[in-house]
C-alpha cells in the first residue's frame, strides 16, 4: 500500500536537514566574507598608518637588505629596532603579526624572527599585492607565534597589502606588508550566530513539518479513504466482471445444451420418421373440433403407398380419405367410427379402401381419442394397417373351417347311420342265433351249440367295436354330454349279459357278478356311458384271460365314492406298459405280453376319458401271470354337466 506519511516524513526530514545545513553554510560563508572584508579594511587602514608612520623607517633597510646575506638578516641590528617600533605601534590592537617583503619577495622583516630571510615570491597573495591588489586569507591556526609569544586556537586573517610612499596610490609600490589580524572573537560570534540560525531554521522547519505532517496525514486519510472506496469499487467491478463471465459461460453452456437438444430432437425426429416409414402402417393424427371440423395434423408418408394417391391429396384435405378412398359400401362404418371418435371414444374398425388403380385393400383403422381438457377438442392418434393378407387368410381359414365342419357333420351323420344300419342286422344275427340255440327250431347237438356260441360272441365283439368307434368319435368331437339320472346298480350290471357272457361261456371262463348290499340304490349317473365303461373293461378281461375267473364287483368306496372293480386271472400287464394302455389305438401286441392282437385299441382310452369326465379315477393293479384288476372310482353324486 502507498505509505504517503512515511515517504513524506522521510523526504521532508531529509530536505529540512539539508535546507538547515545549506542555510547555515550559506550564512556562515556570507558572514565570513563580511568578516574578511571588514578585517581586510582594517588591515588596509593599518597599512596606511604603517606607511605613513613607520614605512619611511623601513625603506632604507629594505633597500639594503638585498645586499645582506640571508642568514645574517634576522640578526641585523635594524631588525630589533624595527621590531620595537612595530610592536609599539600595534600594541593594543588585534594585530598579532606583521611581515614586510621587498619587491623581490624577500622577507625583510617579521615579528616572528625565524621567518626573516624567507622568499615569498611564489606566493599568490604576495604577487597580488605586488600588482597593487590587496589579498586576504582567513585561516584557523592551532598554534600561532604572536608578538607576545605562542597562542593557540586562533582564527587569523592575513592580508598582503602593497606599500607605497605616503600611501599615495599614484606612487610606485615600494614593498609589501603582510598583517595578521586575530579575528577569533568575530568568528566565535559568527559560530554562535550560525548555531542560532540553524536552530531557528530547524525550529521553523519542524513547525512547518508538523503542520505539513498533519496536512499530509489528513490527505493520507482522505487518500486512503478514497483508495478504499476505489478498491471497493474495483472489487465490485471485478465481481461484476466475474459475474458477467459466469453469466456468459452459463449462456454459452445453455446455447450448447440447446444446440445439443435441438440436434437430439432432430435425430429423434429423423428416427421417428424412419420408424414411421419402415412400418408399413399409415399413422395419422387428426383433430376434431367441438364444431365437428376435422383437420389432419400429421399423416405419415405411407398413406401414399397404401392408397396410391399422392400425399398432397390428403395433407390439407381431410375429406379426401372418407369421400374418395374408403370403399363406398364401407363408408357407413367409417362414419360410425368418426362419431365414436367425436365422443372421445377409442375405436377400431376394419374396412376396405379403393386404391388409385382400383385395387381393393382391407385395412384396420385403430384410433385412440384424447380429449383436450381446455379446448374440448378431440385428437385422434390412429394407425391404419393393411390387413388384406390377413383377411384373405381368414377367408381361406373360414372356408376350410366350413368345409371341416361340414365334413365333421357328415362324419357324425355317417357314423349314426352306420351305427343304426349295423345294429339292426346284428340284432337279427344275435337274436336268431340265440333262438336257434334255445331249441325253438329244434334241438342243437353239442357242435351246433358251440358254433352258435361263436356266432354270438363274434356279434358281441362287433357290437363292442361299433360302440367304441362311435364313442371315440364323440369324445374327439367333444360332443360327449353326460346326462345324470338315477339308475339301479343291477341295471348297469345287466349289460354284461348281452356283451360278455357269451364269450366267457365260450372260453369256459367263470364270470362272477357281485353288488355289495351296502351300495346305495339308485345311483346317479349317465347309464349309457357307464355301460360303455363296464363293457370295455369286462370285454378286455374276458378277451385276454385264457382260464380262470373274471369277476365284476360294485361297492361303496368310503362315504363319498363308489367303485366298479373288474379283475381277472389273465396274463397281467407288464409295469413298463401300464402307462401306455390308456392311449387311443394303443395295443400291447409284443409276443411276451401274452395279449392277443384283437380289438380296436380304443376301449381303455374311452374308459379313461369317460371316467375323467365323470369326475372319477382309474386304478390299475397288475403283475405278469398274476392277473389284472381295474378299479373305477366315481363320486356318488358327480357334478352335473351342463344340459343341452
Amino acid at each position: 500500500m502507498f505509505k504517503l506519511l512515511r515517504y513524506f516524513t522521510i523526504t521532508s526530514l531529509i530536505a529540512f536537514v539539508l535546507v538547515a545545513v545549506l542555510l547555515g553554510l550559506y550564512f556562515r560563508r556570507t558572514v565570513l566574507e563580511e568578516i574578511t572584508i571588514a578585517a581586510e579594511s582594517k588591515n588596509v587602514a593599518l597599512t596606511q598608518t604603517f606607511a605613513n608612520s613607520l614605512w619611511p623607517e623601513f625603506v632604507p633597510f629594505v633597500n639594503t637588505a638585498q645586499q645582506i646575506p640571508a642568514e645574517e638578516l634576522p640578526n641585523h641590528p635594524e631588525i630589533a629596532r624595527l621590531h620595537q617600533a612595530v610592536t609599539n605601534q600595534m600594541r593594543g590592537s588585534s594585530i598579532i603579526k606583521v611581515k614586510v617583503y621587498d619587491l623581490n619577495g624577500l622577507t625583510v622583516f617579521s615579528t616572528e624572527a625565524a621567518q626573516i630571510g624567507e622568499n615569498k615570491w611564489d606566493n599568490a597573495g604576495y604577487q597580488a599585492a605586488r600588482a597593487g591588489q590587496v589579498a586576504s586569507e582567513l585561516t584557523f591556526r592551532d598554534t600561532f607565534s604572536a608578538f607576545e609569544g605562542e597562542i593557540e586556537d586562533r582564527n587569523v586573517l592575513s592580508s598582503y597589502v602593497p606599500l607605497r610612499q605616503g600611501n599615495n596610490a599614484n606612487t610606485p609600490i615600494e614593498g609589501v606588508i603582510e598583517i595578521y589580524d586575530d579575528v577569533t572573537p568575530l568568528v566565535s560570534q559568527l559560530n554562535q550566530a550560525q548555531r542560532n540560525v540553524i536552530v531557528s531554521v530547524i525550529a521553523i522547519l519542524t513547525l512547518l513539518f508538523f503542520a505539513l505532517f498533519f496536512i499530509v496525514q489528513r490527505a493520507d486519510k482522505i487518500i486512503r479513504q478514497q483508495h478504499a472506496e476505489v478498491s471497493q469499487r474495483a472489487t465490485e467491478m471485478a465481481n461484476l466482471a466475474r459475474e458477467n463471465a459466469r453469466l456468459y459461460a452459463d449462456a454459452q453452456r445453455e446455447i450448447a445444451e440447446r444446440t445439443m437438444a435441438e440436434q437430439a430432437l432432430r435425430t429423434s425426429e429423423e428416427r421417428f420418421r424412419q420408424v414411421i416409414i419402415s412400418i408399413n402402417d399409415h399413422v395419422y393424427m387428426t383433430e376434431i373440433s367441438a364444431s365437428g371440423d376435422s383437420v389432419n395434423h400429421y399423416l405419415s408418408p405411407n398413406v401414399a403407398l397404401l392408397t396410391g394417391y399422392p400425399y398432397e391429396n390428403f395433407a390439407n384435405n381431410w375429406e379426401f380419405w372418407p369421400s374418395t378412398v374408403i370403399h363406398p359400401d364401407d363408408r357407413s362404418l367409417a362414419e360410425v367410427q368418426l362419431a365414436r371418435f367425436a365422443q372421445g371414444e377409442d375405436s377400431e374398425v376394419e374396412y376396405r379402401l379403393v386404391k388409385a388403380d382400383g385395387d381393393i385393400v382391407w385395412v384396420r383403422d385403430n384410433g385412440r381419442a384424447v380429449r383436450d381438457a381446455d379446448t374440448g377438442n378431440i385428437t385422434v392418434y390412429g394407425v391404419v394397417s393393411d390387413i388384406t393378407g390377413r383377411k384373405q387368410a381368414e377367408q381361406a381359414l373360414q372356408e376350410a373351417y366350413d368345409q371341416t365342419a361340414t365334413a365333421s357333420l357328415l362324419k357324425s351323420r355317417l357314423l349314426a347311420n352306420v351305427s343304426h344300419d349295423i345294429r339292426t342286422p346284428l340284432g337279427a344275427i344275435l337274436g336268431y342265433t340265440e333262438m336257434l340255440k334255445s331249441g325253438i327250431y329244434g334241438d342243437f347237438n353239442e357242435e351246433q351249440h358251440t358254433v352258435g356260441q361263436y356266432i354270438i360272441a363274434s356279434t358281441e365283439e362287433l357290437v363292442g367295436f361299433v360302440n367304441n368307434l362311435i364313442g371315440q368319435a364323440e369324445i374327439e368331437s367333444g360332443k360327449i354330454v353326460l346326462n345324470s339320472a338315477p339308475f339301479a346298480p343291477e341295471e348297469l350290471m345287466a349289460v354284461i349279459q348281452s356283451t360278455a357272457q357269451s364269450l366267457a361261456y365260450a372260453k369256459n371262463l367263470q364270470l362272477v357278478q357281485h353288488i355289495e348290499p351296502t351300495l346305495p340304490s339308485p345311483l346317479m349317473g349317465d347309464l349309457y356311458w357307464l355301460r360303455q365303461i363296464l363293457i370295455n373293461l369286462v370285454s378286455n378281461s374276458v378277451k385276454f384271460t385264457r382260464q380262470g375267473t373274471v369277476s365284476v364287483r360294485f361297492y361303496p368306496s368310503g362315504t363319498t365314492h363308489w367303485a366298479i372293480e373288474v379283475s381277472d386271472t389273465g396274463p397281467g400287464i407288464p409295469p413298463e406298459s401300464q402307462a401306455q394302455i390308456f392311449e387311443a389305438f394303443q395295443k400291447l401286441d409284443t409276443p411276451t405280453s401274452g395279449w392277443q392282437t384283437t380289438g380296436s385299441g380304443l376301449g381303455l382310452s374311452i374308459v379313461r376319458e369317460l371316467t375323467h369326465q365323470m369326475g372319477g379315477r382309474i386304478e390299475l393293479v397288475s403283475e405278469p401271470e398274476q392277473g389284472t384288476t381295474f378299479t373305477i372310482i366315481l363320486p356318488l353324486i358327480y357334478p352335473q354337466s351342463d344340459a343341452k
Partner: protein
Amino acid sequence: MSVPTPQYLALVIEDDPRQTEIFAQALRMAGFNTETIADGQSALRRLAEVTPALVLLDLQLPGASGETILTTIRADDRLTETRVILATANPHMADSLRAESDLILIKPISFIQLRDLATRLRPPDTLGNV
C-alpha cells in the same frame, strides 16, 4: 320251464320284420300274448283300443315317432299300468326318455336278455284267469 298260460298282452311296435319276430318270440317265452305293429300310426290306433301290460317300442318308426307313442301312453290314464321297453339303435335317442320308460335296450338286443327282463316285468299271474 312250463310255458305259462298267456293272459297279458304285449305289443311289439317295430318296423323291421326280423327284429319283430325275435322280440315277439322272446316276449311269448316270457309269458305274454303278443301282437306286432310295424308303423307309428297303426300303433297309436291300436293303443286306443287295447290295454297292453307291456309295450316294446322301437324309437325309429315310420308314421309316428316312438317318442310320440311313449308320450301318448304316459298321458293315457287307462295305460298307467303298462310297462314300456324302449328299443333303439341310437343310444342317445333314449337319453331324454329314461324317466318315462321302464327299460331301455340298445340294439342289437339279446333274445335271452329280453326274455329274462320281460319275465321280470310281467305282472304276477292271477288265479281264475288261468
